């Protein structure tokens, strides 16, 4: 199993313990995970992602068999198409975008262009709904959560689009899923890092309604405990415990 939602690097608004590739490898071993898609956390807050991406590839190079670099591609930045092709050439399984941090609205045509272009290259586009709970954010962390409208808009952009939406909760997932056609729904995967288990059993309800195949393992390490999504799976109702997550 792959963790599709990990990062290396620091976070601007609080201290994060040892957010390094070797620490991540130890976590994967401890949790029995085969590998991880890894973004560069500081790059989400850079204007120009270029140097952050370069650092990501350099830091992950020794661990490339298990830690797969997922660079950030900013579609309103000159030369983004070349950066996308470079990501493909470097073997990335996906790229990341941060629409709210970059001030790109839900129907921004440049975001749609990125989603289409990534899809045509066989790359998933990873989106982050939030890095932290709204109630604890730093006053300067004013970007807000990614909207369901943005995800719907991107899912409708084209047949090749493949989205991996991380850190979404039940309400957003349902709003997006039931606002898409069946074909569009199949373009969206959700990580389970921010979905609650019992007693409300949101994850179980989503598995029953949306389908387990639309969900993937994600932890949002190093911001959050990797133990959380694992615990959520362990606490699924008996009839769902064999349920298989999706494969991106």
């Amino acid at each position: 199993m792959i963790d599709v939602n990990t990062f290396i690097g620091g976070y601007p608004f609080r201290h994060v313990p040892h957010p390094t590739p070797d620490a991540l490898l130890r976590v994967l071993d401890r949790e029995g995970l085969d590998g991880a898609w890894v973004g560069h956390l500081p790059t989400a807050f850079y204007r120009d992602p270029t140097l952050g991406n370069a650092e990501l590839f350099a830091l992950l190079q020794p661990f490339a068999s298990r830690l797969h670099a997922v660079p950030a591609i900013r579609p309103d930045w000159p030369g983004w198409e070349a950066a996308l092709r470079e990501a493909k050439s470097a073997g990335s399984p996906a790229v990341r975008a941060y629409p709210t941090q970059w001030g790109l609205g839900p129907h921004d045509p440049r975001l749609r262009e990125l989603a289409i272009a990534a899809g045509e290259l066989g790359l998933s586009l990873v989106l982050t709904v939030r890095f932290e709970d709204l109630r604890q954010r730093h006053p300067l962390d004013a970007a807000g959560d990614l909207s369901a409208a943005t995800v719907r808009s991107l899912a409708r952009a084209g047949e090749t689009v493949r989205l991996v939406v991380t850190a979404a909760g039940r309400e957003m997932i349902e709003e997006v899923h039931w606002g898409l056609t069946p074909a569009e729904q199949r373009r969206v995967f959700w990580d389970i890092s921010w979905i609650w288990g019992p007693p409300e059993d949101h994850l179980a309800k989503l598995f029953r309604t949306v389908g387990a195949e639309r969900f993937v393992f994600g932890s949002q390490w190093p911001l959050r405990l990797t133990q959380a999504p694992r615990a959520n799976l362990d606490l699924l109702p008996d009839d769902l415990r064999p349920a298989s997550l999706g494969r991106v």
Partner: protein
Amino acid sequence: MTASRGAGEAPLAGSAPLIDAHAHFYHAAAGRADWAEVNAARFRAGERIGITYHVASVLGSYGFSSPTYFPSPADVERGNDAMLEIATRDHDRVRMFTTVNPNYTDHTLREIERCTKRGAIGVKLLASRRADDPLLDPIAALAGERGLPVLHHIWQHRTREWPSQEISDGIDLSRLAERHPKTTFILAHIGGGGDYMHTFRAVADVPNVYPDLSGSGVDRGMLDAAVAALGADRLLWGCDLTMCTGLAKLRALDTIGLPAHEIEAIRWRNAARIFPPNSFERCTP
């Protein structure tokens, strides 16, 4: 239906005693059709995790006939009655906090006496009045006299007012706790929203405040910082509304390398110490 534990299957969090110091149950007047299902889910997940006791409260009507955090006296009573019924029926695994709204002082004091006589072992304060308000003094005093810990809903670092609650933070609760040094206060859910680092500093020198670990927040570094700031003897394990994060935190306590006696303290020994003696027959210090 949620997870249950099959015959011979070990609890996910091990078989040592485990007290959830912050749990809730629902009832028929809570305005949701699935209330019994949610209660059953808590029991089944508790069994699978290995929870020995759920120390729980009912928060009035949960907003159905008065606001969750400002429950009317009638809803307070109805909720406490429902909680009494659950605690009586499931006495082998449930203990009870008496929920009160401090804006109704006489009613609050009567309600604490009424429910304590029937087995309640603590008092639950929501966010109906700021924690340092003088209206809370008679409640804290009575709780202290009876040896009942007061679980107070907390927003970790309040920087402004938020709708639907009159929120309090660690500083507010500390003021109350300093006025009532013989009363034990449980500071609710360090993972329940806000800045827990602020809380740790706010309560570090107030020894009668015991933060619980519950809440949906699973920030890496939060548990390490809590132990470093307060010590394992000041922390209580709990789930509140997300039992998956409760299990994750238990596993993380192992991972961060706490010695066994400190994990035991957080799992149950601290709770057994601060609640009235013999509250937990199956957890004997």
